[in-house]
């Protein structure tokens, strides 16, 4: 029974790559905290928020949105055929939030004061809302995830306690995470004269929630594909196809609202004379929204094991580009400087993603994450 867990990990390309990244990550972490932000980043007085906010926080939170979406579908709408993907999605959400917090600890000037948000209140600040949403929703995710750990440890009593508060917990989770997704958009409402008109909109909070739901669903497809490959499991197309239909709706609504807003503000006129920002926008909206949406309308493509993950990857890339466009591309002109992250900033971001993969693999190995594996495992143990 224990031979499986004691086996040394095989050293393929990804294992070596991951180890190198994690070592570099540790070195940068040391430099960051001993020498300050200026020594490792390309941030400046003109460009105070970089890729640690734009990628690690904005993208990390968005990609974790699958968790609240699937939790709501299964436990509030009681559409139970999605039950098998609930646990991996929840794990992705929890890891996403833990890594967002890790990213924040890098980016904050004085991270050891993060608790100040608990005692020095300013309810007029969006950042105050963001801080509370991160703390409360991470707590909810931990409580939602703990039953899986208790199941592994065969702790029945605490599991029953958590099950008793299950419904309020799920509702609180949906509320907190939608508030958090939207608040990341609200952050940028305060810069109407700085953020380029292709991205500034009074509806940014809504746009952030809607794009996160679409990206969250696309992430569920991707993560099912990847874990299918890594753990040698077959793809559950009877679950992923309906998800793809949900993705058509979510992506379509988001794309439509985006287009309507650009029309109303007249910002689309900028596209007639494409410059740097316009090209980035077209890339984002074209490959992240229009192309995948059109392809997903074809039933045969939605059912295809090859096409669906590829299109989901497009949706996720488009989402990442959107968050980076809001936080970097759209802010450069007003700042009067071009911001390109330093190699060390990249290292931290890539390192956190690598850490996420490692933690996911560990959790998938030691915890009952993929429930339909249980009978197979029991059979293997018995034999």
């Amino acid at each position, binding site marked *: 029974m224990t031979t499986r867990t004691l086996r040394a990990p095989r050293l393929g390309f990804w294992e070596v790559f991951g180890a190198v990244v994690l070592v570099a990550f540790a070195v940068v972490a040391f430099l960051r*905290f*001993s*020498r*300050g*932000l*200026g*020594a490792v980043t390309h*941030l*400046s*007085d*003109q460009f*105070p*928020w970089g890729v640690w906010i734009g990628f690690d926080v904005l993208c990390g939170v968005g990609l974790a949105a699958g968790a609240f979406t699937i939790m*709501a579908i299964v*436990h*509030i*709408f*009681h559409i139970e055929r999605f039950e098998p993907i609930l646990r991996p999605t929840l794990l992705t959400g929890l890891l996403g939030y833990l890594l967002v917090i890790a990213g924040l600890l890098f*980016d*904050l*000037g*004085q*991270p050891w*004061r*993060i608790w*100040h*948000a608990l005692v*020095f*209140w*300013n*309810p*007029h*600040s*969006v*950042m*105050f*809302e*963001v*801080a509370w949403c991160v703390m409360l929703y991470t707590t909810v995710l931990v409580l939602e995830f703990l039953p899986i750990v208790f199941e592994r440890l065969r702790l029945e009593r605490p599991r029953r306690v958590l099950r008793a508060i299950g*419904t309020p917990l*799920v*509702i609180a989770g*949906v*509320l907190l995470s*939608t*508030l958090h997704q*939207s608040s990341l958009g*609200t*952050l940028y*409402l*305060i*810069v*109407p*004269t*700085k953020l380029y008109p292709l991205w500034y909109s*009074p509806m940014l*909070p809504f746009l952030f929630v809607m794009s996160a739901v679409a990206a969250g669903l696309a992430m569920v497809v991707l993560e099912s594909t990847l874990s299918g490959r890594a753990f040698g499991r077959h793809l559950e197309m009877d679950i992923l196809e309906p998800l793809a239909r949900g993705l058509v709706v979510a992506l379509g609504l988001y794309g439509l609202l985006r287009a309507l807003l650009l029309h109303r503000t007249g910002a689309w006129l900028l596209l007639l004379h494409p410059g740097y920002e316009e090209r980035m926008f077209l890339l984002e909206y074209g490959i992240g929204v229009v192309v995948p949406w059109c392809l997903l309308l074809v039933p045969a493509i939605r059912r295809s094991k090859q096409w669906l993950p590829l299109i989901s990857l497009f949706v996720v890339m488009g989402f990442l580009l959107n968050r980076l466009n809001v936080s970097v591309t759209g802010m450069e002109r007003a700042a009067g400087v071009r911001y390109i992250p330093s190699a060390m900033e990249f290292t931290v971001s890539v390192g956190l993603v690598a850490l996420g993969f490692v933690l996911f693999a560990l959790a998938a190995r030691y915890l009952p994450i993929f429930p339909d594996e249980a009978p197979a495992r029991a059979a293997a143990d018995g034999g």
Partner: protein
Amino acid sequence: MSAGLLFDATKCIGCGGCTAACKEEHELPLPIEDRTTAATWTTVQKRAGVWTRTMCMHCLTPTCVSVCPVGAMQKTARGAVVYDAEKCIGCRYCMMACPFGIPKYQWDRPVPIVGKCVMCAERLADGKQPACATVCPTGATTFGERDTLLADARERIRQSPQRYVPHVYGSDEAGGTAVMYLSSVPFAKLGLPENLPRQPLSLLTWQVLGKIPDYAMMAGAFLYGIHWLTRRRMQLAAEANARAARPAGRAGA
């Protein structure tokens, strides 16, 4: 009773007295840099052929005060926007949000804080003027009550219309500022943004933040309602199935 500063760019000779006095008053390290930093809170530079100052505008409804999650930025009763380094966590949202690009950061320190002009709030509390205003030899920077300064500025424009752009910058920008400018060239050429709304920027976020309690209650009730409805429907379906599965003879017995 809100204090303010009026800077008349047509009177500035670029002597740099204000910048030196600022460094001395706040014990900031030299040199005096050519743009504001965490260690240089005000500068004098020639732009478009005119000497102009850069410093915190001390907004009447400051964006930085509204965005700071821990309340490290505060507006004093006298009108100065001050910074409490002991509270600051270093999120730098004030730097992002400030429409004038004023707060600056100590990028080279492992324990960094924000630096910005605080209108010499401690001197104000002692009944003194800000250091920069006391040393200005030409009266380009003058200190006083904001209302008085604004009236004075408008009077100067009325008396010498050929000398000034017919607007007091700061009278209503972003809801109005305590530091105001007069100039002979367009304010944009002095590096002052001319595309700012007339209302405080914090209204933009408060319109959303203020709705959160309503959203939470309505969405919570809605989600619980859906949860209850769908579960009830499943229970009824299960009962109907169970009834249908029972032997028909039992109903007659």
